[in-house]
């Protein structure tokens, strides 16, 4: 339907400044734009007057501005203060609210009524990375040991002591801001109040002034009321033909020694308390006794894959330093023993079961690293059918291949999470492996999937080892339960991420590490009052890698508002996109892709329309008016729609699609930002003397010159695009060949050359890689080569090959939708 005002020439207009306007410190106010011919996604005819993309809101610009204005120190002392963007370098000082690295909200000013929430359509979500890494300049949450009495908690809602608790009655009781109940202060915890009504010891007690801290748990918080043993790490190695032939087994065994040196340890601990164990499997499962006192390792084969069990107790899990010699000789034996294997039918579920039961038998939590090669087709529980049919992707029927077949892996995942056993899958497939199904184990147990299709040890080995080392060494929590408590009026309702829930409130995580985030939707169940605000407390009960049971508490206070403009001023778009993406991916498994996408577009339009209607000064209906902090919403929503996770069609295979969908589900905000809007860094004009990353540019082919070299990354892929007309000298310095045409495209790393440029380029690539938790494979793309199509697929502002809308097209479409809503 055409708007009557269609055809009005686009015009930029001064934004109306007013009470609803953004903070004066923002240089660029509302972005207003007039539409042209309302374009249609997929419409072929280009309108006559083309909208200049440079005038459309630019993420690069927004990030740069934020970096300029908000870098430095961010104090968390104020209720409802919007933190800097995740891309901005800032240092957090915890002054009562948890650092935004741990927890971010999609909005920091919460509409007071359900009705208002409905109108604005902006989701209220939290993205929590409870173990996120902190900068060196920031403090780790302090660990508080309350001794026998354990953490002090509200009697009614069981919220933990935090700065939001108000002491009354001379310090004898405290008032809980979450549930409004009053609780007696335990005598051991009593302290007098000063004249301001605050405890005099508050500066000695982190839980009274900080937003993030940890309590040491008492036995009541432990499995079977006994303190846990240190967690363990079990390597499960598929030793069937594929993995032997690809060189994986050999490579892995040769690197295990280095890998186990990296086991994480508690802060201040001298060495890691974690133990390791080894299992190999093909169509049977092999356990190894690596007790340090043995002369040689012992292998025990369990052929009973129908009823898996652990055949040994002592000596399976050992301290890697004590058993070093035995592990060494085992690592020499494994590749030899299976060198001549012809076994191609493997099991998987029984192997995971074996690892799970090994942990159970040792009564500890832990993690399984499964190195698996092929679709499990051996006659055993968890045997899978090949249902590879990529034509289904993108159609109404895609659910049938994206949802798991059978429930063996799902129930196995539940067993795992119940035992505190997390499963990370390293997949080395040469064909369909049904990640949608086998990935369930990882999904439910808080694990992660790494995928190396067509793995060859000599090409991909380095990347794999880097990934394993990263996986093993990163900060991690085991056997965790997380609960989100909110003040009355709102409630956590929906949860996205890799975990299992046996009830409606507690997320059970066999493990969670610094790279994973959980996204939680909060909904109103009552009216809020403006003076109270909204309080959120996230409690993560976990076992540290040293075996200590702790509770990490993250507190966040938000404001409430009755004016919509207050809301639109205090939104965090990155969080909204993270939330929307996860919700969309989740919904794809329930409804048809078409309706899910339509819903997303509609919701986006509604958010913007509501702003236009209620917050913007009345202007011509033909003008597109975007709220300052949401001006990138149309772009980002389009990116979500175009992303492989949401629209991956028949141009990718089912496993890739499942992999990406699972990857999105665990993404934290720094990852999701770059995943949906990849970073494009020009390298041809790099400043050799600087040691910073060169500034990125907009992700569009308009910005790509054929005499340029560009690095593109989205956290999963890393491309180096080389124009055909690049300066010869540049090519010579970096690749050691005469011209772009001579570059060997198949290589996955740059040659080591002794010149400043080469060193600099390698440094840039390394530092980009270091920012991501998966080691990205470097793909070289030469202009006009076949692979260029793949590269261009990630230029998000462009029109997609499969006809998905360009930024311009989508923005116009959005404008049309908004106008439809307004009229």
């Amino acid at each position, binding site marked *: 339907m055409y708007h009557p005002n269609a055809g009005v020439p686009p015009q930029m207009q001064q934004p109306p400044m007013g009470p609803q306007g953004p903070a004066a410190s923002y240089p660029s106010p509302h972005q207003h734009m007039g539409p042209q011919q309302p374009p249609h996604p997929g419409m072929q005819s280009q309108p006559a007057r083309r909208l200049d993309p440079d005038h459309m809101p630019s993420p690069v610009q927004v990030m740069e501005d934020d970096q300029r204005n908000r870098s430095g120190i961010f104090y968390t002392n104020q209720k409802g203060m919007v933190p800097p963007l995740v891309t901005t370098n800032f240092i957090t000082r915890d002054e009562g609210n948890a650092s935004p690295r741990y927890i971010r909200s999609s909005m920091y000013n919460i509409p007071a009524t359900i009705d208002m929430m409905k109108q604005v359509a902006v989701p209220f979500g939290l993205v929590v990375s409870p173990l996120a890494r902190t900068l060196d300049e920031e403090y780790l949450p302090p660990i508080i040991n309350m001794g026998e009495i354990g953490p002090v908690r509200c009697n009614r809602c069981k919220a933990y002591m935090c700065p939001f608790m108000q002491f009354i009655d001379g310090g004898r009781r405290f008032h809980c801001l979450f549930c409004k109940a009053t609780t007696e202060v335990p005598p051991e915890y009593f302290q007098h109040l000063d004249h301001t009504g605050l405890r005099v010891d508050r500066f000695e007690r982190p839980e009274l002034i900080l937003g993030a801290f940890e309590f040491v748990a008492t036995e009541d918080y432990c499995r079977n009321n006994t303190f846990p043993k240190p967690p363990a790490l079990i390597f499960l190695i598929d030793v069937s033909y594929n993995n032997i032939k690809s060189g994986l087994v050999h490579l892995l065994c040769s690197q295990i020694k280095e890998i186990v040196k990296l086991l994480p340890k508690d802060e201040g601990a001298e060495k890691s308390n974690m133990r390791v164990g080894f299992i190999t499997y093909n169509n049977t499962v092999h356990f190894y006794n690596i007790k340090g006192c043995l002369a*040689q390792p012992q292998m025990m084969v369990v052929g009973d894959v129908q009823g898996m*069990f652990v055949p040994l107790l002592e000596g399976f899990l050992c301290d890697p330093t004590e058993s070093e010699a035995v592990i060494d000789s085992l690592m020499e034996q494994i590749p030899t023993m299976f060198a001549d294997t012809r076994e191609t039918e493997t099991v998987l579920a029984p192997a995971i079961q074996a690892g799970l039961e090994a942990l159970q038998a040792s009564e500890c939590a832990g993690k399984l690293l499964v190195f698996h090669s092929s679709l499990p087709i051996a006659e055993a529980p968890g045997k899978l059918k090949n249902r590879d049919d990529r034509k289904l992707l993108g159609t109404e029927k895609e659910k049938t291949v994206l949802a798991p077949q059978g429930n063996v892996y799902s129930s196995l995942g539940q067993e795992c999470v119940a035992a505190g056993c997390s499963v990370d899958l390293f997949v080395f497939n040469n064909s369909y492996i049904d990640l949608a199904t086998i990935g369930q184990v990882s999904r439910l147990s808080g694990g992660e999937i790494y995928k190396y299709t067509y793995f060859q040890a000599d090409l991909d080995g380095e990347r794999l080892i880097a990934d394993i080392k990263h996986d093993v060494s990163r900060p991690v929590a085991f056997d965790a339960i997380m609960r989100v408590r909110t003040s009355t009026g709102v409630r956590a309702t929906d949860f996205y991420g890799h975990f299992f829930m046996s009830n409606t409130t507690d997320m059970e995580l066999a493990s969670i590490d610094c790279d994973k985030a959980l996204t939680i939707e909060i909904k109103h169940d009552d009216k809020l009052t403006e003076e109270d605000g909204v309080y959120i407390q996230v409690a993560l009960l976990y076992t540290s890698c040293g075996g200590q049971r702790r509770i990490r508490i993250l507190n966040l206070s938000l404001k409430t508002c009755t004016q919509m403009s207050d809301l639109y001023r205090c939104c965090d778009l990155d969080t909204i996109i993270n939330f929307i993406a996860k919700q969309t991916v989740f919904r794809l498994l329930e409804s048809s892709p078409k309706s899910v996408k339509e819903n997303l577009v509609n919701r986006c339009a509604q958010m913007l329309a509501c702003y236009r209607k209620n917050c913007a000064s009345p202007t011509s209906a033909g003008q597109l008016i975007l709220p300052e902090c949401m001006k990138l919403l149309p772009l980002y929503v389009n990116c979500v729609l175009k992303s492989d996770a949401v629209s991956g069609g028949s141009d990718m295979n089912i496993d890739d699609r499942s992999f990406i969908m699972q990857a999105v589900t665990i993404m934290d905000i720094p990852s999701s930002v770059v995943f949906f809007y990849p970073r494009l860094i020009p390298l041809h004009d790099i400043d050799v003397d600087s040691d910073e990353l060169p500034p990125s540019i907009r992700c569009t082919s308009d910005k790509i010159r054929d005499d340029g070299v560009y690095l593109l990354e989205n956290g999963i892929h890393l491309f180096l695009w080389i124009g055909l007309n690049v300066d010869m000298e540049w090519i010579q310095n970096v690749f050691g060949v005469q011209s772009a045409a001579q570059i060997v495209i198949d290589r996955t790393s740059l040659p080591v050359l002794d010149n400043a440029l080469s060193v600099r380029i390698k440094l840039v690539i390394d530092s980009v890689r270091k920012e991501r938790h998966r080691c990205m494979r470097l793909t070289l793309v030469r202009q006009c080569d076949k692979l260029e199509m793949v590269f261009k697929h990630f230029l998000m502002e462009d029109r997609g090959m499969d006809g998905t809308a360009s930024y311009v097209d989508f923005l116009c479409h959005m404008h049309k939708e908004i106008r439809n809503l307004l009229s």
Partner: protein
Amino acid sequence: MTTYEEFIQQNEERDGVRFTWNVWPSSRIETTRLVVPLGCLYQPLKERPDLPPIQYDPVLCSRNTCRAILNPLCQVDYRAKLWVCNFCLQRNPFPPQYAAISEQHQPAEVIPMFSTIEYIITRAQCLPPIFLLVVDTCIDDEELSALKDSLQMSLSLLPPDALIGLVTFGKIIQVHELGCEGISKSYAFRGTKDYTAKQIQDMLGIGKFSAPQQQQPRGPGGQVLPPANRFLQPVHKCDMSLTDLLGELQRDPWPVAQGKRSLRSTGVALSIAVGLLEVSLGLAPVSKITTIMCTYPNTGARIMLFVGGPCSQGPGQVVNDDLRQPIRSHHDIHRDNATYMKKATKHYEALAVRAATNGHAVDIYSCALDQTGLLEMKQCCNSTGGHMVMGDCFDSSLFKQTFQRVFSRDQKGELKMAFNGTLEVKTSRELKVSGAIGSCVSLNVKGPCVSDTEIGMGSTCQWKLCTFNPNSTCALFFEVVSQHPAPIPQGGRGCIQMITQYQHSSGQRRIRVTTIARNWADASTNLHHISAGFDQEAAAVLMARMVVYRAETDDGPDVLRWVDRMLIRLCQKFGEYGKDDPNSFRLPDNFTLYPQFMYHLRRSHFLQVFNNSPDETSYYRHMLMREDVAQSLTMIQPILYSYSFNGPPEPVLLDTSSIQPDRILLMDTFFQILIFHGETIAQWRSLHYQDMPEYENFLQLLQAPIDDAQEILQTRFPMPRYIDTVQGGSQARFLLSKVNPSQTHNNMYAYGGAMPIPNAESGSPVLTDDVSLQVFMEHLKKLAVSSTA
């Protein structure tokens, strides 16, 4: 003419045969009226170092239904080169290689002294025996290390080419791969699940690979070797690594909570062992290669199971892991309160059948203070001829010596054990075979000489003996066919031929043939001929076997009543007496001991379960079922020797009266060797007279029974329990429970005691309510002469 006694002895020495009746009644009805059935106790492997090695095949009767073997009882026509089968009367030509025979040049098998002869089949493959060790690891460290020592030692006792395998078990079962380097490998199985042979094969990954290098392995001399695999390796190849492997064996690591038993999976372990051998020998045809293996004859194998406690989980479980619930007693079984017994028994019986079918034997070495479930497992030994050994701990000389003796060797330095045998019985037309009782299983082979009536394992003329040794004795029962009144058949003799084919421990296939004949007599006219040929010892043992066989299924009192009735009927038939006059009762000389044997049998632990655990009962019965006549008699009626200053040691009555203060007694019950010092002797000993030079004769007196005991201890299998006790000592109960209680607390103070006390000067009363032999005999006489009984 020699006496029957000598005749019997000769026969036993030459043929290993003892018949209950050495003259046979000519009709069926008369045979049944003899009360004690016509039967024999036969030792198929009786040691005969004097036998010549016959290196050719036996000559068979050409009649298809007969196939009897040429023997000294056949008529031979040397001119026509013909022989007449003495079983079917078929005239058979001699095979061409016998062309040179003549009266002066007879083949060995027709020479009368070779009524028992052994052929060595040279064209058969020479197969080394297989020994599969199945070791319980749920035992104390000291016990385990003692057991490990014994096992390591046994490696040196095995023939170097024998194949050996190792299975260990506790909560789980491990099948160890032998001869791997750099890493020790084992395959683990759950202890709670029964696996089929096919599953075991799949899980062990054997039998399935048709590896090209598996061309039939040939040993030296072109002999085809049995399919050795990763789990069964020749001893000479793996003894070093196996010694290390045994050395590294650890106790079952699973924790046992307070008040719990270890989880021990004996049932599944045994099942896997049986399955492993089935598979190893290619009995489960799966692919091409295994069908080739199938053409191998069954190879003799021994599963040697070492258990230190009861099976407490999975199939074959005999008790649960809760220590509050004790293992079943006879009382529980009687009240049908033994929860696991039936199911477990079924499991082990099925295993026994499988093992026996394959010709594999199962030995059980049970060493524990409590029961280990021998009752349930007994069929594994009973059916396969395997040993059952019961001891208190592996760290005892009883176990160590016994185990060592398993591998004892004969004069030629070969193991005294035979494998995978079949015993076939052929009879002349007047006879049929009605069954066998012993450590064997029926092969269900019907034939013309198979009787319809069954005693023991019947309806067959062939039995499988998976393993047997020179002592092994089988009871065979026969039936006379002809209805009465029958004339004495032509020739006047009935013939029986016992053919035992087996795998010698050297790997050779051998056939031993025993042919015997006995005269016929018409019982209606010549009963005294028949009664004169009665062998009361053989009869006592044969009856004991029948009774115990019956007792396995029937209730105690019924069995005892049957024993009594049989005894009374025998006395009625052969005693001389005036009607209703007990004092006139006399038995012929060669019957006089028989009632006494029956008296002791009734009181023995074979039939009385009081004070015995079900395991002990099973163990005792097992031994009775396999030993020869002399040993069995010792079990039924222990032997008592008395040592005094008055003369050389003398055998004395097994009676309380033999217990004298100035005597030393030596009792041999087969299971126990007991030295009992009379009160006075004991006092002297405690005063150390023996250490004083002037009392050297006392020292010698003390030493004499010890030396005699040592002699018995050194030869017997299993090694008996050695007990040294004094009058009034707690261990004296072993003696007191065996002696005839002619003096008890009931009659010793009775005025002018009703019983004639043979040696009135002393004797030692026994506290018991059991009747004495004298009372028993009085009753027997009364009932025998009674016209109403």
